[in-house]
């Protein structure tokens, strides 16, 4: 990105001052290297979001921002329903409530080592992943509606996990605004055999080791110690979420004209929060969010069973579960006043600071665990929300590495088999993916997640707590 067009407010804050139809500034959080490497589309898309009705304070882009659909990936924006604010299907994206869940296992690296291959094989057999895989849970229409209303709470009631798990999921595993009647039959049909499936693309299930601790006090509160084994799951609302977005985008494109909303690009499709289509989308999207956490809850159950068979000593406890493609109703202080906003995070993670009322008692002192997914060859990170992020970005930070190279470029540059061999030499076992899929997901095709996390820490959006390196990676 050409930084001459930006005004630097601090080491990691770059402003696009309002011009033309922009109602507020756009603020990009990044260090100088990341912002120079960022594509120009981020500038255009962050500025476009700033043009939407009812936007409050600013349109934000996180350090991993890149070209998205309407919103940049890594975009955050809050809208006030009392000021004509909008809700945007494009601002949530096609994988509603895609997110990361990390689970402590009570097992150390040394204890895992002798059974590592056995564990990888059994996980690959038991976790349905990729196109053509089916869940063992077939849901009838009534069960589907219960799942969409209940989210992870529904999953726990069905015997997938414990009530204790729910404390460590955003909104305790259930968004209250879910309205299954606004979810189409086609979306429900797409989901009937997909509860507890991983999906494909950049989704994964990883067995990781804690390879570095940056903040000993917060790590202690999160229960993370050097060489501990952690399981992380990255996936979303599967076919249901994709279909909800597919159903609502054209509706919002068509209704925008009626509401007099000028869309700089069609993917920015949105509607007033206080309108039929806006309300219906919020009800349906909340179902998508519940579906995603139910999905990760069922997957957690499958992981627990596998661990109990191979490592009977293990004891799996949720560290936390975050959603990074979502719109939520949150209270934020703006100009000294508390306001109820519809906060969109498109490829951005909620990062509430210490003492936030939504956090469980044992995590309050450290702030919300923020889970940042890396690639199968690099690392993932655990961060903690800061007090400052509440005023900087509505309590939001980055979500992952972000691609540096397209899938087509990656397949030209790498062969899946070479990547598998290199990773095996470094002790990383990959299971489940096709060789072309591995080439498309090559670690080198992503930005350096370490740089993204460092910039996030420097910008005080969240602070680094621990680094997690992959040992086993199951992909679809």
């Amino acid at each position, binding site marked *: 990105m050409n930084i001459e067009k930006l005004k630097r407010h601090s080491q990691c804050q770059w402003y696009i001052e309002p011009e033309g139809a922009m109602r507020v500034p756009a603020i990009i959080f990044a260090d100088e290297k990341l912002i120079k490497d960022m594509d120009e589309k981020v500038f255009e898309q962050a500025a476009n979001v700033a043009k939407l009705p009812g936007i409050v304070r600013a349109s934000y882009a996180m350090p991993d921002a890149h070209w998205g659909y309407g919103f940049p990936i890594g975009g955050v924006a809050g809208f006030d329903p009392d000021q004509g604010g909008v809700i945007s299907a494009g601002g949530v994206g096609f994988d509603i409530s895609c997110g990361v869940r990390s689970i402590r296992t009570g097992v150390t690296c040394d204890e895992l080592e002798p059974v590592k291959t056995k564990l990888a094989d059994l996980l690959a057999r038991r976790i349905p992943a*990729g*196109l053509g895989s089916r869940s063992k849970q077939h849901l009838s229409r009534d069960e589907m509606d219960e799942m969409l209303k209940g989210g992870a709470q529904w999953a726990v009631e069905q015997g997938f996990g414990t009530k204790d798990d729910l404390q460590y999921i955003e909104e305790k595993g259930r968004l209250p605004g879910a309205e299954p009647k606004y979810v189409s039959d086609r979306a429900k049909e797409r989901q009937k055999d997909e509860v507890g499936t991983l999906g494909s693309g950049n989704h994964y299930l990883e067995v990781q080791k804690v390879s570095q601790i940056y903040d000993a006090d917060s790590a202690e509160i999160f229960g993370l110690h050097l060489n501990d084994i952690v399981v992380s799951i990255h996936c979303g609302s599967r076919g249901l979420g994709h279909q909800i977005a597919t159903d609502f*985008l054209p509706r919002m494109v068509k209704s925008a004209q009626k509401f007099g909303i000028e869309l700089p*690009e069609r993917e920015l499709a949105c509607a007033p929060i206080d309108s039929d289509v806006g309300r219906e989308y919020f009800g349906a999207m909340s179902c998508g969010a519940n579906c995603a956490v139910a999905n990760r809850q069922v997957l957690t159950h499958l992981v627990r069973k596998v661990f109990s068979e191979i490592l009977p000593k293990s004891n799996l406890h949720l560290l936390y579960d975050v959603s990074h493609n979502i719109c939520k109703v949150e209270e934020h202080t703006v100009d000294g006043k508390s306001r109820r906003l519809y906060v969109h995070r498109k490829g951005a993670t909620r990062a509430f600071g210490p003492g936030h009322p939504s956090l469980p008692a044992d995590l309050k002192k450290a702030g919300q665990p923020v889970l940042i997914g890396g690639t199968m060859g690099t690392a993932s990170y655990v961060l903690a929300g800061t007090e400052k992020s509440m005023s900087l970005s509505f309590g939001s930070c980055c979500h992952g590495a972000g691609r540096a190279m397209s899938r087509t470029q990656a397949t030209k540059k790498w062969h899946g088999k070479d990547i598998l061999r290199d990773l095996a030499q470094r002790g990383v076992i990959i299971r489940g993916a096709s060789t*072309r899929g591995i080439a*498309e997901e090559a670690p080198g095709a992503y930005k350096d997640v370490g740089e993204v996390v460092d910039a996030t820490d420097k910008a005080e959006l969240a602070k680094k707590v621990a680094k997690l390196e992959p040992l086993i990676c199951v992909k*679809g």
Partner: protein
Amino acid sequence: MQRTEDSVQKTAYRLNAERCTLNLVILMRKTYWQHYSHPADMGIRGVGPTKEQAFAQAALALTAIITDLQKVVPRELVEIICQEQDDELLFVSWLNALIYEIATRGMLFSKFEVNIANNQLSAKAWGEKIDVKKHSPTVEVKAATYADLKVQQNKNGSWLVQCIVDV
């Protein structure tokens, strides 16, 4: 004299016919699909002498994201109908209808016949059930998007359709 004029006329007709054939050959050759780069996802493009053929080519590009087209035997027929207010929305609806059939029937498609009239599309798609061992699917397509969306007729008369799909 008359004979010479006839001969010139005939030569002109022949040349014209040859030019038409040549144009047709060029147009026929211009029936193809391709993938193009997008930072996070994948762009698909279909080109053909008619809008319908371009739509069908883009559908081949969609399947080719998931697997090698040669591996998909067109043995089973699925019929698809969709309607939209303009060509661009119709193109995205067409791809999303296919994505829905792939997801719910667990099928992949490798042969298409598309008809479009009055913003309504009716199509036949032939394919077979997904066999993970045989097709080794690379990735699941989540949705077709409005990003980089084009349905346009080029100066030479051929049609180009494209958009980014979310994978």
